[in-house]
């Protein structure tokens, strides 16, 4: 322990004065920090006059000088005066704290407000030197470079900015696209290599009607990243909306199945032997239970394999079904097709089942089908294209159920998208309950040739 023995009265006075001066200095420092801290707190509301008062009292505070500069810049007043004052205040703030990169951002904004973009660029380059990995600085510099017609030099800075903050992706893509005159290469550089950003680039390109590039970007993104992303389903749906249903189905199938052998089957997962794909899509079976019937995969009663689709009816009157299970399929416009599946029933009671007649005429809209049946509808309008005969009531082993139809030729897209779905529409506002169980398995859709022959 160090001890000072101050015995002389003069020394005691000197020491007391020293301590008092130290306390005053520390007190002033603490007060200054507190006052400046309060002014700099974004939660507090401070008027400009209060800020001016504080800056006058603490003229060497770079924080207060910069706050005042910002205040000048955002004030609706005489442009020349405020921009000149803002420039001076920001320059003073930088001079007071030359190692703070954020003050240089304010200085750059003030310099640009005064019309000096070259000086603003210099300030931002100095800010980058001080904070080379700060996304905000990259963002500011990238935008300034665009305004200076230096698009090429801005792209790397944009990439750094949006990689750190993907919320800026869309506005960046929009800007770079517009400034570059719609150059894919420019937005491609900005998106970088991260799957998250590239997954945002693909829909952007789709929105700009660059379908091929959109699909190309999407297909090259890491498969696992695509499977994880919520953007994937949206993109595939957008691709369908853009008239690229076949491309959408191919991209989806690559995600649904790791290895694809040759051409895609017309009906996906025809025997229900595969688990549902991780990315939901209309090109897979979509199962929805309703109050009238529970729909599920039955693991132990397949016809060819082990699984089949099972519908358990709840025995409710006026049973109405429409799309409790369904799948979108792609067909060639004008071609003739056969939809076939196998059906097994147990104690099936359904009004209209026994009075049903033969298959519908292809291309013609049949009368309201009262019995349970499979229908082929236009996936956009849901208008009926073909229907199978009603499923027979009672108990039976696997029996074939099929219908032939011609794919409509009035199409604008590359392939016509239809939908296979279960349907039952009661003829009257009341009919007897439907009960029992039906199994479906081994669906197939095969092209029979040209529909006009």
């Amino acid at each position: 322990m160090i001890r000072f023995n101050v015995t002389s009265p003069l020394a005691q006075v000197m020491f007391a004065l020293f301590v008092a001066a130290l306390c005053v200095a520390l007190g002033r420092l603490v007060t200054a920090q507190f006052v400046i801290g309060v002014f700099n707190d974004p939660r507090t509301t401070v008027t400009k006059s209060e800020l001016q008062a504080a800056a006058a009292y603490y003229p060497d505070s770079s924080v207060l000088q910069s706050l005042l500069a910002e205040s000048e810049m955002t004030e609706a007043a005489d442009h020349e005066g405020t921009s000149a004052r803002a420039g001076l205040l920001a320059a003073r703030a930088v001079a007071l704290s030359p190692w703070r990169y954020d003050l240089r951002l304010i200085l750059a904004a003030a310099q640009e407000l005064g019309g000096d973009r070259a000086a603003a660029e210099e300030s931002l380059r100095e800010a980058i030197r001080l904070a080379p990995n700060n996304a905000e600085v990259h963002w500011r510099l990238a935008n300034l470079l665009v305004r200076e017609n230096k698009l090429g030099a801005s792209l790397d800075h944009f990439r750094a900015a949006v990689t750190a903050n993907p919320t800026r992706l869309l506005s960046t893509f929009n800007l770079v696209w517009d400034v570059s005159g719609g150059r894919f290469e420019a937005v491609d550089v900005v998106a970088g290599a991260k799957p998250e950003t590239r997954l945002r680039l693909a829909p952007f390109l789709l929105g700009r009607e660059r379908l091929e590039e959109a699909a190309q970007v999407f297909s090259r993104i890491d498969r696992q990243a695509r499977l994880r992303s919520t953007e994937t389903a949206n993109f595939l749906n957008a691709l369908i909306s853009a008239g690229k249903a076949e491309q959408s189905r191919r991209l989806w199938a690559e995600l649904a199945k790791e290895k694809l052998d040759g051409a895609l089957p017309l009906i996906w997962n025809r025997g229900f032997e595969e688990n549902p794909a991780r990315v939901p899509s209309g090109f897979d079976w979509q199962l929805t239970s309703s109050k009238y019937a529970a729909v599920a995969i039955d693991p132990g009663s397949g016809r060819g394999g082990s699984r089949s689709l099972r519908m358990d009816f709840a025995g409710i009157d006026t049973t109405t079904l429409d799309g409790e299970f369904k799948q979108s399929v792609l067909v060639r416009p004008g071609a003739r097709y056969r939809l076939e599946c196998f059906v097994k029933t147990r104690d099936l009671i359904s009004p209209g089942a026994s009075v049903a007649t033969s298959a519908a005429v292809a291309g013609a809209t049949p009368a309201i089908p009262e019995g349970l049946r499979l229908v082929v509808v236009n996936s956009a309008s849901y208008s009926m294209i073909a229907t199978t005969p009603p499923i027979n009531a009672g108990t039976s082993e696997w029996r074939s159920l099929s219908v032939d139809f011609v794919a409509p030729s009035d199409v604008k897209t590359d392939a016509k998208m239809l939908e296979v779905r279960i349907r039952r529409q009661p003829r009257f506002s009341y009919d007897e309950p439907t009960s029992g169980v039906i199994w479906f398995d081994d669906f197939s859709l095969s092209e029979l040739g040209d529909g006009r022959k």
Partner: protein
Amino acid sequence: MNVKPVISPQRALILALFVSSFFFTITAIADPASNVSGELLVAKEVTLDDAPASAGLTVLSGSRIKTSLGGRVTVNLSKLGRVTLGPDTEAVLTFSEGVVGGELLSGWMVISAPKGVRISHLTADGAVIADGSQSSLLTIDVTSGNTRVESSGASVLSGNKREVVVAGEELEFSRLPGNPSMSASSVITRRQIAASENGIASRSTMGASVLTSLLTTVVRGAVEGITLNHSQVVSLDGRDGGRTLDRTIRQASSPDYMRLSVAQQQQTTCGEFNENCANCSVKPDLIFARPKCLTTFAVKLNNVNATSLVSVRPFFSSACFRISPTFPQQVQIPPGGSYPFQISARFCPNNAGQLPQNSQIVIETSTCGKRNVQVAWGTPCQ
């Protein structure tokens, strides 16, 4: 050897000038980003061409800028000046060398331009023009349905009329009903406006009361710091944590303050003995709100026989919710009428009701005084 030039020096000069001018023209066409572009200096809850925008983003001519109820934006147009858009405002901005223009579709805006920059802005009612012979500070407000302009020296073109806006005056113009065409006749009204309160403290005041001002600000700031809803403090630029140029949302210079106020001469104020509003009362007595939700309440004045100007605001400036339309609304409520206001509690935490700063709003009326109303908080919206 004496070589005769193929073309004379004069011709060469002309050719060079022609080639260079052609080259520059081609360059300008090939490069869509001419030097005329702006920057979002301040950007809060704003979209640029329907994409969320943050401060620093470049604004190209022809961009559509839209702010939400709590939003604001200031566009730095460099040598061309600045454009500030208030909350709930939509505008298309166009600019080129020496000209700032566009169209104000809703809300209000302030254009500040230096001398030499012409301003030509359209609204549904006509055009507001400044010829650039002097620096311009122009406020255009279409929130009331008509176009109101405050400026000094700007002209207003509406239908077949042209009027000059004089300093200290506000000019309101609208097309006559049933005359949708721009050439149709219109109504232009002049009004005297109160001296601008958009002020900076005078130097003498500053000198005299620096310490007092500092003291009051620091005490208020410290109290706000303790009572504020800290969950609200989010950087405008999201995860960057970067500093924005919008820290100084000051009462005096905030866009709300710049907005044109409702014409004063139309007000009827009730003193204690004013027969128009004896035994008056302001309703409702209690307002219900839900965190994460937008809820509506109607303000009504009972026993008031004159049109009232009504403004509603949170009692505490640190409240998590906003009132829409934005304060100072000064909406006109006729006798027996009511006006729907909204509490936007989108950013309120689930426990908003437990925080005292969210407990009250203030309804200020020109006829029946001021009333504090309790806010009751329900379950949060999902």
